[in-house]
């Protein structure tokens, strides 16, 4: 079962902003124990958050909900209304266009559906792994881990180590639910897709080069002119940093990032941004399917949303480790992609030829990011203490423990713990 993105955008009733903030703080303050939304009971949600966007006076106050869920929207919405009706009603009664005192399940689904927006680019860390599958993998690894902690295997011949583990799993009553597509298969799929893409694109590009090449030259000349003008333009005053961001970070191993920025004015920038997002979206579907978004190995889910008539770009990411390491990863491993997206937005450190410069100015880039980070008062992860790297190991352990392995494979497997 594949994972999908749901994004719901609603306008907040101006006199309800404060009340909504309080409510979200209350829900987020006790994310698994609150009585408004019983997240743990929702078996289709892997990550979810609500954010309030209200600081820019040029835009109306807005509430955005994102969830990364298993299966189709319909069944996910069903889950949401089943386990979160009280919360959803309390939240959306503070938003525009909600004509109910207490919406019924059907009314709520209709409301949410009608406010859901498309996600131009969506990245998944472990594609094809539903929440039950992920939880099964975690359970299996932990069970084996506990077993290894209690027995001494130093004198046991390697050939019997595997059968002892299998035996232990059996007696513990946990069955490995093998992935429909293993991580190795996913990796070869990525390779194959890339080759296919090149085979299709290369002759096309070659054939059409008399058309696009001159166009590209013109594009680059215009781009560079605009970039130089941008770099010379007076800088916008720095935005204040929300100090609450820091209290919400590093509570778990995973963290959440919401970044909201204004797209630079003009069709040129917007057009460029849309093309780049389209390319990222394509690559996310066919190539970034092995747990690396342009080389960054710590992202569980990420998405980009264009909102307010394409005037603002919203980015959501659920990642492992500290904010500083995440931003560092971005620059170390995905600098070109990153700069090509955000150099089309305001206040980003100056880029050269769309891909160069930009985020390479690491300190300015981090400041820019902090200033555009928005607090997510409600943030839920179904497995907040697992890194993507952990998950990948867990899945590999689960998928191979009951298969026949040669000596080298078995040794590799045992080193994953």
């Amino acid at each position, binding site marked *: 079962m594949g994972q999908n993105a749901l994004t719901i955008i609603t306008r907040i009733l101006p006199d309800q902003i404060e009340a909504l903030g309080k409510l979200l703080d209350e829900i987020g303050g006790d994310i698994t124990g609150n009585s408004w939304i019983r997240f743990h009971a929702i078996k289709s949600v892997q990550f979810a958050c609500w954010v309030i966007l209200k600081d820019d006076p040029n835009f109306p106050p807005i509430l955005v909900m994102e969830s990364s869920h298993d299966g189709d929207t319909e069944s996910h919405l069903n889950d949401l209304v089943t386990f979160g009706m009280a919360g959803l009603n309390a939240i959306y009664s503070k938003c525009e266009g909600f004509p109910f005192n207490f919406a019924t399940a059907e009314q709520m689904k209709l409301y949410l559906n009608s406010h859901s927006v498309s996600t131009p680019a969506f990245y998944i860390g472990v594609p094809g792994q539903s929440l039950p599958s992920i939880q099964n993998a975690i359970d299996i690894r932990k069970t084996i881990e506990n077993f290894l902690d209690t027995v001494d295997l130093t004198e*046991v011949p390697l050939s019997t180590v595997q059968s002892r583990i299998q035996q232990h799993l059996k007696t513990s009553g946990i069955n490995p639910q093998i992935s429909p597509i293993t991580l190795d298969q996913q990796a070869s799929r990525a390779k194959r897709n890339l080759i296919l893409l090149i085979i299709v694109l290369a002759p096309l590009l070659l054939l059409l080069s008399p058309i696009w090449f001159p166009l590209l030259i013109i594009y680059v000349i215009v781009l560079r002119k605009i970039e130089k003008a941008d770099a010379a333009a007076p800088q916008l005053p720095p935005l204040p940093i929300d100090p609450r961001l820091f209290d919400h970070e590093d509570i778990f191993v995973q963290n959440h990032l919401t970044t909201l920025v204004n797209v630079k004015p003009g069709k040129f920038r917007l057009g460029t941004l849309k093309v780049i997002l389209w390319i990222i979206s394509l690559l996310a579907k066919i190539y970034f399917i092995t747990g690396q978004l342009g080389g960054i190995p710590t992202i569980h889910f990420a998405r980009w949303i264009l909102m307010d008539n394409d005037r603002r770009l919203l980015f959501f990411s659920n990642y492992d*480790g500290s904010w*500083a390491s995440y931003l560092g990863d971005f620059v*170390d491993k995905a600098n070109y992609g990153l700069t090509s997206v955000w150099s089309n937005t305001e206040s980003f450190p100056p880029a050269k030829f769309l891909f160069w410069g930009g985020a390479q100015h690491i300190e300015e880039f981090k400041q820019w990011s902090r200033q555009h980070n928005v607090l997510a008062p409600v943030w839920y992860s179904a497995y907040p203490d697992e890194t993507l790297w952990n998950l990948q190991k867990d899945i590999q352990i689960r998928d191979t423990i009951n298969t026949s392995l040669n000596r080298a494979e078995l040794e590799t497997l045992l080193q994953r*713990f």
Partner: protein
Amino acid sequence: MLDLPDIQGIVTSGYAHMPHSRYLFLTVTNQEQAKLWLKSVCPHITTSARRSPGEAKPHFAVNIGFTSLGLSAIGLVVDAVNTFPREFLQGIAHGERARVLGDTEDSAPDRWEFGGPDTDEIHVVLLLYATSAAHLETISTQVWDSSMPNNGLKKAYCQESFKKGVDEPFGFRDGISQPAIEGVPGKINPGQSVLKAGEFLLGYMNEYGVMPPMPTVAANIESTAALNISSANPTRREFACNGTYLVLRKLSQDVDGFHKFLDEQTRNPDNTSNQSRQTWLAAKMVGRWPSGAPLTLCAASDDPQLGVDENRNNSFNFADTDLEGFACPIGSHIRRANPRDSLPPNPKKSAMVSDRHRVIRRGRPYEAMESEKKEQGLIFIALNADLQRQFEFIQQTWINTPKFGGLYDTKDAISADNDGTGVMVIQQKPVRLKIHGIPRFVQVRGGGYFFLPGIRALRFLAES
């Protein structure tokens, strides 16, 4: 080109031939007097200028740093102070920094002996080094003495350190692996990274190939210091040029607890102590043997000749021969503090990333008797151009993280914020060995984030 005479000496030298040192923490009580005092010490500040041939090695060295409060207290205008980065402005004891660094429980700033919220505000640190105890006294009385009349400063704390040998208190050779600064003359040892000057000094290109932001002052402030006009903004001058940030942390080491723990974990079947196994376990925690010999190069037992040999003791990487961590465990102190080429996605990228998170370490051990008990540890000192990206990153993202290198739940056994439930994983065949119940062997007792100005900037501070 590096402007060596404008750079404080500690950036380019650890003053190895001066075993005596004193760290004096001062509070400014009168700005005008303190400025006059600063003017009088400027000529004493040791710089990085090379000695001329035949010139004798000096008997002492003096360096000076300021906290952000200290810069204000000595009279740097507020719009200039505010051009410094957030971490420095907050200071090491700020709640946000404490969380990042894991300074909690017994290591929390409100329990510190100095530099915390409940102790005297620290403005200035004087770093004094000397070849003998007598020379240390001489230089101390020359530079700052509480008996000096009206000097506008009072003592907040004083820390002595005497370097007996090359070992830190747990018994391991320290100060082996250091990055070198491109453009500083000197011998480069095999395996030593040579990094762009911008990693350790402001005003130079860094490892990202860019000039980092520069704290500045208004250009119209009168001074003979001749600070450069900022290339980005002609109305400002580059105040921080040739300066750097110095992290100082008093780290108390529970040496008895450390050895007791090693003993308990390695007893023979008949419950007698196993000395060689204890050394083995400690070496697995550190990643080097007591002599300094890296486990990656000699996994089975210590090799003291290798340990002392500068040409070999740091000449190794992990990816080729030790990616799985069978020799030097993935979670060991040196592998976390500098993962070299061992992290994904590939060795080349990993080495590049590691080089973007290095510090120059200038720490020295300390020792004192406290109510009949020997209290000892490390006055940890690190120099870097970006506190967040270098020092804090190493502490937070590598040392304190339970997930380092794909592991599940293990922090650095030596210098992380363990809480007694810590786990250490030692990779071996067929399956790893797990050591449970790791306590916090190292507690933080005080510290500060200091800015070490260039020599001209010091004069600027004293004059303007």
